[in-house]
């Protein structure tokens, strides 16, 4: 059975933010503007957290790219009153935009704060609307959204593989973030395939998870920095 997962090598991550920008471009995420961002309504499905250690001049910065962890035991799922979020058989935490009525309970119950709400309808002033990805919807106001592991690219690759009567090959699906990372710190693939790169990396001794004590069983693995 396929189980999609991701690995972030925090030792390789330079904090450049290319992944975040690529995510915006790929998924038609609205740019909320200065005023709204100051109110805390910016929508970065994938954010780079900066953690400073030490005092100047001996400061170290660690970068942590955080996105929806696609938890196997997701706390956001049982609390949605209309089943707008659920777990797919392939291990993704799916979000059904047209079902969402905007109670925002799922966002409150996410310990990683990776869910984002459309407070206003998105505005793509000309010529930005030409950059929109036709494979992805534009969400209306009042609807919750989050990282989907670029499900449109997964669908596309699976469609092609089905047409060609073969399985999806490891490395064939590149999420927008993994595609654009210059340090190749992001790896995406099938965790249930023991030979895939992501499964091998997830088994190394540097592998760790965020907020593991909450038993959310995230599908995202972080590789600790080399000390």
């Amino acid at each position, binding site marked *: 059975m396929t189980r999609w997962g991701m690995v972030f090598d925090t030792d390789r991550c330079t904090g450049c933010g290319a992944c975040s920008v690529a995510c915006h471009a790929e998924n038609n995420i609205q740019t909320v503007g200065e005023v709204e961002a100051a109110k805390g309504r910016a929508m970065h499905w994938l954010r780079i957290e900066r953690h400073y250690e030490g005092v100047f001049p001996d400061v170290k910065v660690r970068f942590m790219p955080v996105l929806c962890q696609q938890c*196997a*035991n*997701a706390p956001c*799922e*049982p609390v949605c009153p209309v*089943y707008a979020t*659920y*777990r*797919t*058989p392939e291990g993704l*935490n799916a979000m059904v935009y047209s079902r969402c009525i905007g109670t925002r309970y799922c966002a409150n119950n996410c310990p990683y704060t990776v869910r984002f709400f459309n407070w206003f309808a998105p505005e793509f002033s000309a010529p930005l609307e030409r950059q929109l990805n036709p494979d992805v919807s534009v969400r209306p106001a009042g609807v919750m959204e989050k990282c989907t592991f670029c499900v449109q690219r997964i669908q596309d690759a699976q469609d092609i593989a089905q047409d060609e009567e073969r399985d999806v090959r490891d490395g064939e699906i590149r999420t927008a973030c993994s595609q654009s990372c210059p340090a190749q710190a992001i790896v995406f693939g099938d965790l249930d395939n023991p030979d895939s790169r992501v499964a091998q990396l997830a088994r190394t001794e540097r592998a760790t998870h965020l907020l593991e004590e909450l038993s959310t069983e995230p599908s995202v693995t972080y590789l600790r920095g080399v000390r």
Partner: protein
Amino acid sequence: MTDGRLHAAFATSAEVRVALNRLGQDGVPPDAVEIRSSVPLEHDIVPVGGRIKSRLPWTSVVGGLVGGTAFFMLVKLTSEAYPLPTGGMPIVPMPTTGVITFEGLAIGAVIATVATMLYECGLPSLFKKAGPLDHHIASDHILVTVTCDEGASSAWTAKALETARD
């Protein structure tokens, strides 16, 4: 012989008791006697031979059971009919279903109680004729009305405040 109504207003329930006894002695059937008051009276103030009963609170219990079962079925059967994927969590967990069943119990009991009460009281019944002495009920008196022949004996109205016929 036309049946009319003889109304008598009394100030205290003791006097009503006397009146009811006289009516019983006169052999007036309990269906022909109507006692009306603005407060609940002592339970022995009933026409001689009359009976008061209520199916409450048993209907509340039955209504509660029906409501609880209905809500339980709603949750269980519908969730199983639309089996949405939940990533391993049970689709009909007993604790959460229990919460909804409890509310169903309550709502069933409430509706059954009110429905039984309205049925037993014969409400709404907006077309019964008002009587000439009804305002005495509003001033905390007790009204006894007897449906009887014109000119029948009215010894029982001896201590009434006021009597009238219609």
